Structure formats: structure tokens, C-alpha cells
């Protein structure tokens, strides 16, 4: 089967023909095609999450010297299904003094925003929900709904842990939006397009040498760190730190409402990995993708899974940051570095150098800025580390 036939705009000829033969108007055909595409995306997203949760648990298990889920279904693959069914049968408890409208709206919004984000992800050259010309901006806009859902949940629950979690959401998701967006602007500058598919196309297909991650490694690093924070992944999981604020903003949710937050969390992680793949790892590009377009989907999903794996790996390795550290890391390290990188890349691009030279200059600039930034950071941090912090002067009565 030619997978390009599920392109939403030029849907496979058989389906298109089918609709035309039914004598429908042009707009009607578009609507029906888009509807089918949207439902396909939705089903894909939900199935994907079932797999992702299993994958994350299995990975965490293996990294931690455990087996992970292995009872339900082959290799425990149906564990998530069993969990979802169990959550379905659980009672839906709403706290007495909860603000009911935002409380109930929040899980829906959380799910809504990740499904919307799937729309502009190019799975393959022509397998994309909507190849709009402001794809990157659209992702930012949709992403903001997610932080709103978390804040609504935290505020509406009338729970102090949820409230602290909600505040942390504001502080973290808003702060890290800046470096994320600044890191995403750099490939946009180089490729001259905001279309997600355009970004993938711009990275050439000569076996990965055109990927932006080679020429713009620093931009990718900033993007990846910020995406960990935006995805509420460790080490930036302090907004749902189970050892501090128990579960953060979703503490009061039970049963399926909790499951929707859980689903949104995993799909969000995956969407961020998918954006990273599209912008920095050539998206669906890979060998023989021109001859066999269906390969593109496989390349894309494979690369995304690798990024997702790195996210899970980081989670097993790094302790959680504290809120002040999280804030200063963003505003005092990532943002200035991203701004400097932005300026440097803009100037290099305006020099109009011939191609291989331009790529090398970009790489050198990236590495130089990274090294400078890390050195400066190291120097200030060493000062902070070796001076013992005494937050208060203890007083003990002496004779």
C-alpha cells in the first residue's frame, strides 16, 4: 500500500475518485477528506500513546535493572490497555470546593492541545495533516493551551499541592517557551520557511549530511533541553514532582480524567520529539525515500523514537532541578546563548558564503558559542558551589 495515499490534501486517487463519482461538490469533498484525515490522526495518536507508555515503562525498567511490564499480552504490550480499562471503571471524584468549570475543562484541554499539535507534523513528504505556511508559529500557539490546561487544573482543584504545581507550570512552561522558540527560529532562518514540511525538505536527502543538527548543534541542544522542560520531563519534572508536591496540578484527578492528563503528557513528549526530528534531523528524509515514499514514515517514526528514548534515558540519569535553579538555568544561560546564536547565525547567513563554507562557519560559530557559554557558566557555578550557603543564622543559647 502506498502510504502517501493518506495525504489529506491529495488523498489517494481511489478515495478521491469515489467521492467525485458520488457527485459531491468540491468543498464537500475537501471536508470529507479532511474529516477522514483528522480521524486517522486521532486514532494514530491514541494508539501511539498506548505504545509510548509501554515503551517508557519498559525502558525505565530495563535501565533500572528491572523487567518492566511483562504480564499482560506479549512483552506486556497490553499493559497500558489494561490500565486504561481499569481507570475507566474508577470513580470520578471532584473535590467539594473545586471550581467546577475549569476543573472539568482542564483534562479536555490537555488532550485537545496535543491532538491539535499533531496536525502540522510531517510524517512523510505528503503525509501531513495541514502543511500551513506558519507551522512553527502554530505549534507555539497550540503549545500555550497546554500550560493553560495545567494552570486551570492547579487553580481549580482547591488543593495546595495542585496550586503549587500550577504555579510551577506557569514559571517553567512560560520560561522555557522563550529558548524553545529562539532555538526553533534558527533553522527557520537558514531554510527560509516556517512550513514544517518545508523545514524537512530543506535538509536535503544526501544521507543525513544536510540535517541541521550537524550545522546547528547548539540550536538543537537548546531546543532539546527546552523541550524536556516544555514536555515536563525529568529533570524538569518539578511541576509534578511526586516526592515534593505529590503529583502537582493533577493530584485531585481520578480515574479517566487523570488518564487524559497522562495521555497528554506522553503525546506531548512525543510531539516535541517529532518537532525535533523534523527541524533538526531531516524529518522523513532518508535513503531511497524518493523511490519508496512509504519509507519516509518509517524513517520519521524511527528518528522520533530515538529522541523519545533519549528523553527516557535522561529521566533515569538526572535528579530533579529546584525551581530557582530551573529559572536561572533558563534565563541566565539558555536565553542569552540563544540570543547570541540568533545574531551570529543571522550575520553568517547575510555573508552569502558558498555552501560548504557556510555550513562549516555555522558549525564553528555554534561550537564556539557553546564552549563560551559553558565556560562562563562553569565559572559562576564554581563560585556558587564552593561558597557554603547559609540561608539563616542559627541561634542556640550558650552560657
Amino acid at each position, binding site marked *: 500500500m502506498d502510504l502517501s495515499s493518506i495525504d489529506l490534501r491529495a488523498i489517494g486517487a481511489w478515495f478521491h475518485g469515489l467521492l467525485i463519482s458520488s457527485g459531491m461538490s468540491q468543498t464537500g469533498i475537501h471536508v470529507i477528506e479532511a474529516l477522514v484525515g483528522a480521524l486517522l490522526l486521532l486514532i494514530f495518536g491514541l494508539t501511539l500513546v498506548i505504545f509510548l507508555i509501554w515503551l517508557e515503562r519498559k525502558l525505565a525498567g530495563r535501565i533500572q535493572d528491572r523487567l518492566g511490564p511483562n504480564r499482560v499480552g506479549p512483552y506486556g504490550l497490553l499493559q497500558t490497555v489494561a490500565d486504561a480499562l481499569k481507570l475507566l471503571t474508577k*470513580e*470520578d471524584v471532584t*473535590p467539594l470546593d473545586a471550581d467546577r468549570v475549569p476543573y472539568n475543562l482542564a483534562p479536555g484541554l490537555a488532550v485537545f492541545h496535543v*491532538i491539535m499539535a499533531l496536525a502540522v507534523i510531517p510524517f512523510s513528504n505528503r503525509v501531513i495533516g*495541514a502543511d500551513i505556511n506558519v507551522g512553527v508559529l502554530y505549534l507555539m500557539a497550540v503549545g500555550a493551551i497546554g500550560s493553560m490546561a495545567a494552570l486551570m487544573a492547579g487553580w481549580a482543584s*482547591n488543593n495546595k499541592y495542585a496550586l503549587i504545581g500550577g504555579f510551577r507550570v506557569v514559571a517553567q512552561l512560560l*520560561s522555557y517557551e522563550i529558548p524553545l522558540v*529562539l532555538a526553533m*527560529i534558527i533553522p527557520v532562518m537558514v531554510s527560509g520557511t516556517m512550513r514544517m514540511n518545508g523545514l524537512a525538505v530543506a535538509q536535503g536527502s544526501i544521507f543525513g549530511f544536510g540535517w541541521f543538527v550537524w550545522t546547528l548543534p547548539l540550536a538543537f541542544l537548546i531546543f532539546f533541553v527546552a523541550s524536556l522542560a516544555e514536555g515536563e520531563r525529568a529533570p524538569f519534572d518539578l511541576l509534578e514532582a511526586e516526592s515534593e508536591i*505529590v503529583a502537582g496540578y493533577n493530584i485531585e484527578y481520578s480515574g479517566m480524567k487523570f488518564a487524559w492528563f497522562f495521555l497528554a503528557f506522553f503525546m506531548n513528549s512525543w510531539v516535541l520529539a517529532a518537532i525535533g526530528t523534523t527541524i533538526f534531523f531531516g524529518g522523513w528524509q532518508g535513503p531511497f525515500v524518493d523511490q519508496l515514499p512509504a519509507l519516509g514514515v518509517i524513517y520519521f517514526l524511527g528518528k522520533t523514537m530515538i529522541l523519545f528514548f533519549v528523553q527516557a534515558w535522561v529521566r533515569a540519569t538526572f535528579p530533579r532541578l529546584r525551581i530557582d535553579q530551573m529559572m536561572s538555568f533558563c534565563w541566565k544561560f539558555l536565553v542569552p546563548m540563544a540570543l547570541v546564536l540568533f545574531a551570529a547565525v543571522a550575520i553568517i547567513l547575510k555573508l552569502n558564503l558558498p555552501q560548504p563554507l557556510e555550513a562549516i562557519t555555522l558549525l564553528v560559530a555554534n561550537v564556539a558559542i557553546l564552549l563560551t557559554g559553558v565556560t562562563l557558566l562553569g565559572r559562576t557555578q564554581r563560585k556558587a558551589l564552593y561558597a557554603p550557603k547559609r540561608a539563616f543564622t542559627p541561634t542556640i543559647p550558650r552560657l
Partner: protein
Amino acid sequence: MMIDYLPLLILFVVAAVFAAIAIIMPSLIGPKNPNKMKQEPIESGMIPFTDARQRFPVQYYMVAVLFILFDIEVVFMYPWAVLLNKLKVFGLIEMGFFLLILLIGYVYVWRKGAFEWD
């Protein structure tokens, strides 16, 4: 051009319907035995001392303000970034001034200690 956005509109409707189902479904399926103890907010097994909605510290508000400032500036950069190849050196200089103004604000905010957590 606008036909590009039709799938988005349809997806919006589909996602909204799905979200609505997601919100309504849990209250239809599953048992319902509410009691006062169960509906207390969870605070590690104790009845909370006070209502949760109280004064909250200004730091979070500062972050939100900073976000609005920076995010809008960065969004303005996007159209410029797309058109960079077509712009002359003047465009670059203009962005330089734009960044300079941003930088002044940034340094001011840093000096004021808005990035510290106290």
C-alpha cells in the same frame, strides 16, 4: 491558501468533540459513591488547614510578565527570519537595533534581580 486551513478547522472540531467526550465520559462510566471525606482535597491524609486559594507570591507573576515581553518580541522575529534571504543589509541592521532594545531590557531585568527566585 485558505484551503490549507480547512483540515485544521476539521481537526479542531474533531479534537473538540473528542475532548468533550473525554470530559463527559468519566462521569457516565464508573461508580458514584461520593462522601464528604472522599471529596476533601488531598493533603497527605489530613483535612486542610485553610482554603488553597490564598495570596500567592509575586515571583510567578513576574515570570508571566517576562514571558509576555519576550515571547512577543520573538514572535516578531519569525517573519523577519523567513524573509532573511530576501532582505538587504539594512534588514540586518534593523534587527540589530531590535535586538539591542531587547538586550537593554534584558540586562535591566537581570540587574533588577527578576531572574533570582527571591
